[in-house]
């Protein structure tokens, strides 16, 4: 009885140790692939060279497996961006515009940085980006560098940070020094 308890404690400890050990891309993807749907508030700060001060945005971000993400921006103006499958829809000032993602490779690459990450679709991410994972299960960072020459001219890298199966922060860096940082506030 005592031995069994001991073994159990040891097992839990070992498991915890494993969780705190080195964390790789495949493990991260497998972890993310378990999430069926998620929804959270976000706030976004864009720093742009031509502006004296950064721009602030906020709203909610939601994801539903397999291929749907929605970004409802509430401030400073209302805008809904929805990607479902291969169709990108933008609603703004009562007007709706839809385009096929295939036709806009820059936007498609950017969309996948978020959607494929949330889906845990490692092969799609690796197709578009050189990937690098750092940190632990509890505090990981996924650094994406675009493979496509033309996309690389506009996006230097996308850095996604998170904990477990949750994405906490998405940072997009541009070659000219402009940047955009989106922070996701999970309620728990």
């Amino acid at each position: 009885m005592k031995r069994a308890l001991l073994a159990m404690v040891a097992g839990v400890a070992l498991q915890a140790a494993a969780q705190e050990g080195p964390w790789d891309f495949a493990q991260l993807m497998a972890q993310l692939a378990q999430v069926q749907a998620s929804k959270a508030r976000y706030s976004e700060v864009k720093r742009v060279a031509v502006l004296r001060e950064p721009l602030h945005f906020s709203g909610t971000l939601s994801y539903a497996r397999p291929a749907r993400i929605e970004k409802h921006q509430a401030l400073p103006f209302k805008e809904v961006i929805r990607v479902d499958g291969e169709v990108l829809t933008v609603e703004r000032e009562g007007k709706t515009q839809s385009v096929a993602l295939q036709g806009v490779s820059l936007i498609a690459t950017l969309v996948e940085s978020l959607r494929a990450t949330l889906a845990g679709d490692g092969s799609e991410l690796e197709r578009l980006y050189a990937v690098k994972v750092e940190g632990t299960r509890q505090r990981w960072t996924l650094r994406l560098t675009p493979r496509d020459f033309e996309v690389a001219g506009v996006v230097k890298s996308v850095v996604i940070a998170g904990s477990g199966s949750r994405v906490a922060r998405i940072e997009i860096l541009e070659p000219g020094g402009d940047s955009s940082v989106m922070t996701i506030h999970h309620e728990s």
Partner: protein
Amino acid sequence: MRLYPRAALLAWFALVAASGWWIARHAVFTNDLTAFLPASSGRAERLLVEQLRSGGASRTMLVAIEGGEPAQLARSSRELARALAADRRFEYVTNGAAEYIQPARELTIGNRYLLSPAVTAERFSEESLRQALRENLEQIGSFAGMAFKATLVRDPTGELRKIAEGAAQSAPASRHGVWFSADGKRALLLAQTAASGIDAVLQQDTLDAMGAAFALTRADPNQSLLVSGPGVFAARTRAAIRQDARWLTGVASMLVVLVLVFVYRSPGAVALSALPVLTGLLVGVAAVSLVFGSVHGITLAFGITLIGEAVDYPSYVFTQRRSGESLLEVLGRVWPTLRLAVLTTVFGSLALLLSSLQGLSQLGVLSMVGVLVAGLVTRWVLPAVAPGRSAPPPRRLPFSLVRAGLAVRRAAWVLWILLVAALALLVWRHDRIWDDDIGHLSPLPESVRELDGQLRAALRAPNVRYLLMVSATSREAALARSERVALSLQDWAGKGVLEGFDLAARYLPSAQTQERRRAALPEPETLRRSLAKAQQGLPYRADAFAPFQQEVEAARRGPLLALEDMRGTGLDLKVQSLLLSSEGEWQALIPLRGVRDAAKLESLARSLPADLQTTLLDLKSESDRLIGGYRAQTLAFAGVGALAIAILLYAGLRDVRRALWVMLPVYAAIAMTVAGFVALGSGLSLFHLVSLLLVLGVGLNYALFFNQKEAGTESEQETSRALSVCFLTTLAAFGCLATSRIPVLSAIGLTVSIGCALSLLNAMVLGQVSARARSAA
């Protein structure tokens, strides 16, 4: 008598040598299809030919790579584009990748204040600038902001976007940085060949070069290359005709030789049968080259068909030889009839000779000279070289066409009824006899046209059927006028009459328009002040738009955009393909895309002010009309030829009734053949008409020889044998052609086979009636 064979041979040798020498030294063979297009008159017709000959659209190749992964397709697309760009056979190539669109983009950015239709003085006022800056702020924050920012500080008023709005409709979808079809299964490229779109030989060479480059560079062996375009059509047509013609000619020749060997029982006679027609062809080609300067490949191809009748001439002589008779003695009996047979064909060729379509009149010369020479060779050269009296006589055939004709003469009423029915059908359906659709002359299968349609849609390439043509006396005036027309067109597009249009002035505005835009740009101090005020209350850095101010000033002081500045960008080719000049007259072409309401378009085009000198062209109906015109003309001249033949027959036979009875069977056969085609629902094209002229020549010969002697005399067997051999050889040759998959070849084969069969039948049955009528009289 010893002198004669030598003199004849010497004359023949001199003629062949002279023709051969002329052809070797002077004859130019071309593959230019325009010989079969108008040489003349209306500006719409000239334009059509010009477009077909060398217009940018005619030199465009639409290219697709399919099979396998999109990423690999994109790689192959880049490799292929690179290989083609280095090849002199291609003037321009693009797959939408940055390196190919970059020069055009830079030119557009650098000249945006001259090119943008939105440039007015008002656009640089404080109010407008503030509005623009406010909108830009939203754009920066928006989804597409990242790409937008690249040109923001240079172009805050968004002129580039304004220019792109016009062109965006004409850019295909993009993946992995290159053009793709919407479903991502095909990578797309556009190439412009150096060779004219109707030079089938050079186009084939260019096509081969592309295939070789693709085979070398493709990223995945599962990928395949699809190419379409007018030049590709020309090359494929030529290849298809050549392949079919070669194979069918082989089979036909073998059948003809078999028939001749069976009947003549002498290889010498078989070989000699080819002498008149080959000599006729050689001299005929030399004559065409002498008269026209060059010989068209198609003239050669169809000319061989037309003088095919000459193969029969030696047959008429050899088959009527009796045992122990020399050829000269045979000719003494046969020549009067044969001479008439030759001369009727020579006069029949008048119909072609007089045509204003150069291709047809070349055919006329070739057939007239060729047949005449073949007749002379049969008369004078064959006896000089033919085997002597001791040669075996031709085989006795187990049947007699003359007896067969007599046997079925009771059934002659069937033919009369058929003839009346045929004539009635022709009168009733007189408006449906002709098929002038130029598309039906194409020898290519439907799938080829389908692929072209798919690629055109995916590449947003115009399928030029409707276009507006703006005429003027200078390039400037043509550009300026077309800009005014474009204003109306925009309005029509808004009403849904058409989807869009292309315009040279979109890429190169008239100097007048460029000057107006340049004059609208503000002075530096004015712009600085308006901009500073517009920025108040907005979060932009004070000096953020310095590049904008510099570039507006540069444009204000800079030169206007000229065609020469556009070299190497691809835009110059576009402009040149939309601006034509000939004999001091300039034409701006405005191809219309997605015409939904042709009738409305026509009435709107008519309502344009007369000083714009604008004509709406429907190239399809235009070309159909042209073809119809030539067909009508050929028909009229055929009437003249028929009259000449009638006079000739009367002169030769010295009997009106006999002349009529000779003409009746063949004209009846032609009427029945045409009625047959009409009854089957397929109209007659120009090629059918040319074939019917051959039927006329061959059919008249049948009737002439049937009429030469009464039945039951010694020559009955000879006449029957002569006609059997002539008909069987014709049927062998043209029956083979009728099996071709190529519409043009099978039309010729079918028309001649049916026409000749009916001519023979009519001559047998109706001709005998005449003989009976005469003996009864």
